[in-house]
């Protein structure tokens, strides 16, 4: 059966910090394919990374 959202969201998060194994990647991909909630969470986690990067960029812009 497909993995739980709890497990998949943890793997998605770890995927931003380490290389997932082939098995883990497959598990995540299969789950995201059928679960819109986790697919949304996954996109949001990736977005957080871009947003925090903007925080530094914006710091410099604010100071001109």
């Amino acid at each position, binding site marked *: 059966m497909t993995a*739980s*959202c*709890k*497990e998949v*969201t*943890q793997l998605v*998060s*770890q995927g*931003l*910090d*380490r290389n997932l194994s082939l098995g883990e990647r497959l598990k995540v991909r299969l789950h995201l394919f059928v*679960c*819109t*909630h*986790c697919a*949304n*969470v996954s*996109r*949001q*986690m990736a*977005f*957080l*990374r*871009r*947003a*925090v*990067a*903007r*925080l*530094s960029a*914006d*710091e*410099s812009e*604010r*100071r001109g």
Partner: protein
Amino acid sequence: MSADFRSQVESLRPYLLRYATLQLRNPETAEDTVQETLLAALAAEASFAGRSNLRTWLTGILKHKIVDAIRRQSREAPVPAAGEEMELAELEPLFAEDGHFKDPQPAWESPEDALGQKQFLAALEACLARLPARTGRVFLMREHMGLETGEICKELGITSTHCWVLLYRARMALRECLQTNWFAK
């Protein structure tokens, strides 16, 4: 030391201070690390010669100073028991018994547009400030300073697994906070 170099370095002080304050959350420690950075930079003018971007170079020095400050702080304040921090009790209400989400997790509407808005970045900073101290620190070391997990673990004296749990917790908390305070509004 050339006066020109000195004034260029000085002009980046506000940027460096903001960078350090975001990571360290303590204005005094942040001020100290920036001061050390500026002194180190002025003493090392020769080694900057030929590099293209002063801000990048200074940020690199600052990162080292920030990590030093964090290392000192974590020596003074011992790491809480891993068990406590590893439990994701606050996330339990999100999941049903079988580990699936209880409620729909909606998509965010045009998140990329939010990135250009000052109010959104302020909301993000407010959400960051609400994270538990060590969780926020680890998350910012990873996402703001761009350190690898291995490096973060080493500096804080925690295991990789512990680190991943804190990062997971930070991301889940931040998305919930932004969902409530920005995207659901």
